[in-house]
């Protein structure tokens, strides 16, 4: 558009000076447009980076690995106090966990002999993972004595390893296996099928890996760790899986898995990795959608934790906030806008409402703690108190939005109603308020969205508590989504990181939904006059 320059001095419309000024003006316009586009570009790219980083961080948490077990629930182990004592059965974690332990020991007998190895093996499944089957068995005693398929989440660190985390890795081909023989207890030597002693492999090991990287060697069903490679031999420690025939010519391909992070520096041992790979090959470890994230409450173990308690807590909190802030806010706005006399007191109230909207949210948390908890003696950590505090927090916003909406209704509507003999209240409730409703609802929903994302006030009234039961009412202990983000983010295990991002995604979905509703309400009920 701006390319169309006016013709040079030949123009019949102006002097050369005027044309030069015009040129400056066009240049200024182009500059301004460019600045504007730049600003939008910055905003959009910030948004994209945010969305990309959160979603890519969260992606691993949307699936998780589970181990399949077929447990025979014999009465003696799972219900030592008798079938009738369902309470005892439901909390008989040791009994159920021993079934898991037995199964794991049977699968990997090489770990059965040593205590240290057994502990490593049992770490594949968390003790508390059996809570589900314990409860189910307590509820349906008919299960006792049968064989039940049960899936337990894999320990969080192994889960992360299988998703490609924990350590960088690389697979190498080694060559043809020769003879495997025992050096001493647990230590084996493996020769090449030819006389060379895996020269290519050894060269790669020398050049490509650090001194403390683990090199795992796969020979048929067994995993070994490479301890040394001298002469024509590889010296190996047996880690997991059934040993091949000793002393025979193997004539099998061998491969190697290089783990670049040293065993001492990661949460999973070489042996656990080998077990996990073997279980995966047997089809006993599967990757599944992580619906637990939406259905389970918090836990100290990332693989058992879910955001359900926080989601439900947030919903209860929002309901309380909405039931408190929206009616009170609308009534205050209607009174101030339509009924209050215009005097100094009203002015002062107005100014203070505007100030209140700018008060940092943590102050409202302090207020909530002082008034609701200490003075009224309400329980800590419940959505009722959280909702009231957030309601107070967003009340000024609701009032301001509602007043703006009421103000935007043309005064002619009001005078028309009054001129017909409507009382002030009738004019407000029949005409002004319905016309302002879309604006009020939009403001209220956006205020709710703000409340949904608030963390600080909830921390101060104790909604940061560890909650491992999904709350059933607004008077139950509970937590909220932003608080859960804060809590999980400060968790020590690496697995909390994707989980935190996943909760952020859930929170963002809620926020987007609420804003969408606000837009729809505005579109649907917008009236023109």
């Amino acid at each position: 558009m701006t390319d169309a320059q006016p013709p040079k001095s030949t123009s019949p419309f102006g002097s050369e000076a005027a044309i030069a000024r015009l040129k400056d003006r066009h240049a200024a316009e182009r500059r301004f447009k460019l600045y504007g586009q730049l600003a939008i570009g910055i905003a959009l790219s910030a948004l994209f980076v945010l969305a990309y980083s959160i979603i890519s961080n969260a992606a691993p948490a949307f699936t998780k690995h589970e181990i399949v077990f077929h447990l025979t629930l014999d009465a003696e182990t799972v219900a030592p106090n008798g079938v009738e004592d369902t309470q005892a059965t439901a909390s008989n974690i040791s009994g159920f966990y021993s079934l898991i332990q037995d199964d794991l020991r049977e699968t990997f007998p090489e770990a059965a002999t040593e205590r240290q190895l057994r502990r490593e093996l049992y770490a594949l499944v968390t003790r508390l993972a059996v809570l589900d089957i314990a409860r189910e068995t307590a509820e349906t005693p008919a299960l006792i004595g049968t064989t039940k398929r049960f899936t337990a989440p894999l320990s969080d660190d192994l889960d992360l390893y299988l998703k490609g985390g924990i350590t960088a890795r690389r697979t190498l081909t080694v060559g043809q296996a020769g003879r495997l023989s025992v050096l001493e207890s647990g230590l084996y030597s493996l020769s090449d099928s030819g006389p060379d002693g895996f020269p290519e492999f050894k060269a790669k090991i020398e050049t490509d890996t650090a001194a403390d990287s683990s090199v795992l060697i796969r020979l048929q069903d067994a995993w070994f760790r490479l301890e040394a490679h001298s002469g024509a031999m590889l010296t190996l420690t047996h880690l997991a899986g059934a040993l091949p025939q000793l002393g025979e010519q193997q004539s099998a391909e061998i491969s190697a898995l290089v783990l670049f992070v040293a065993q001492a520096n990661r949460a999973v041992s070489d042996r656990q990795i080998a077990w996990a790979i073997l279980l995966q090959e047997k089809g006993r470890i599967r990757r599944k959608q992580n619906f637990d994230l939406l259905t389970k409450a918090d836990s100290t173990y990332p693989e058992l934790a879910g955001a359900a308690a926080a989601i439900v807590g947030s919903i209860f909190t929002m309901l309380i906030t909405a039931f408190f802030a929206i009616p009170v806010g609308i009534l205050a706005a209607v009174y101030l806008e339509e009924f209050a006399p215009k005097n100094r007191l009203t002015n002062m109230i107005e100014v203070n409402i505007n100030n209140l909207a700018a008060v940092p949210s943590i102050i409202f948390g302090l207020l909530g703690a002082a008034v609701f908890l200490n003075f009224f003696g309400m329980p800590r950590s419940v959505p009722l108190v959280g909702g009231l505090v957030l309601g107070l927090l967003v009340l000024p916003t609701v009032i301001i939005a509602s007043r703006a909406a009421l103000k935007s209704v043309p005064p002619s509507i009001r005078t028309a109603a009054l001129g017909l003999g409507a009382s002030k209240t009738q004019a407000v409730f029949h005409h002004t308020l319905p016309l302002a409703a879309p604006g009020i609802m939009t403001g209220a929903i956006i205020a709710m969205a703000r409340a949904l994302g608030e963390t600080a006030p909830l921390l101060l009234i104790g909604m940061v508590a560890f909650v491992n039961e999904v709350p059933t009412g607004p008077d139950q202990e509970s937590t909220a989504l932003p608080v859960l983000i804060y809590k999980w983010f400060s968790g020590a295990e690496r697995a909390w990181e994707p989980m935190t991002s996943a909760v952020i995604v859930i929170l963002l979905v809620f926020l987007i939904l609420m804003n969408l509703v606000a837009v729809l309400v505005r579109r649907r009920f917008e009236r023109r006059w």
Partner: protein
Amino acid sequence: MASATPLITPVVRAERTDNPIKIDCRNINVFYADNQAIHDISLLIPDRAVTAFIGPSGCGKSTFLRCLNRMNDTIDIARVDGKIMMDGADINDPAIDPVLLRSRVGMVFQKPNPFPKSIYDNVAYGARIHGLASGKSDLDRIIEKSLHRAGLWEEVKDRLAAPGTSLSGGQQQRLCIARAIAVNPEVILMDEPCSALDPIATARIEELIDELRERYCIVMVTHSMQQAARVSQRTAFFHLGKLIEVGDTETIFTNPTNQRTQDYITGRFG
């Protein structure tokens, strides 16, 4: 100066009126905070006739009109002194509820202001809040009658459910008149009812006003002297918050007694 010919020659239609007095305003003063807008105005307004208020902008004619249905009550800083007797009762008496007063004194505003509702609901609103209709059919009858009287029935009878705001400007103003009529008032106040309309719509409204004066006491503020001359029987000239002259329209436009009236209607100021 008496020789100056008036700009406006009144139409013959504006006959003298000897109708009984409907509203008797005595010594009206209006203050906006410390600012006096109306200075001691006394005025008689006859029934079943059109009384026009003319005068330059800011002369207080709209303010005075708004005294007649106590619309000034809705302005916090406004204060009205004096007696306005309507059918023998002072409408400024605190015992009189402005809500009831306004059901007897309807008002039509400068800019057409239909509610953003259907045509039907616009007209029905006043009747509903005052409980004038005993049932649906009664309400239908009131609405048809009011739209008839406002000369709008033929144009909208097939689309009563359409929004009032979808009508043209002139139709909207007639809808507002119908809305005022539906409450069954005795007095209709019109605050420059044609100033937002084109000449054709204006002509229709003027015709309508002429018909309506058969039934109602009409008080109209207008900026157009021609309009005052065409439709009113009585004319009051306001200037700087004072009533300068009031009389039969014919007299005011042909033989005003006051020099300022003379100057105004001959176009020397205003």
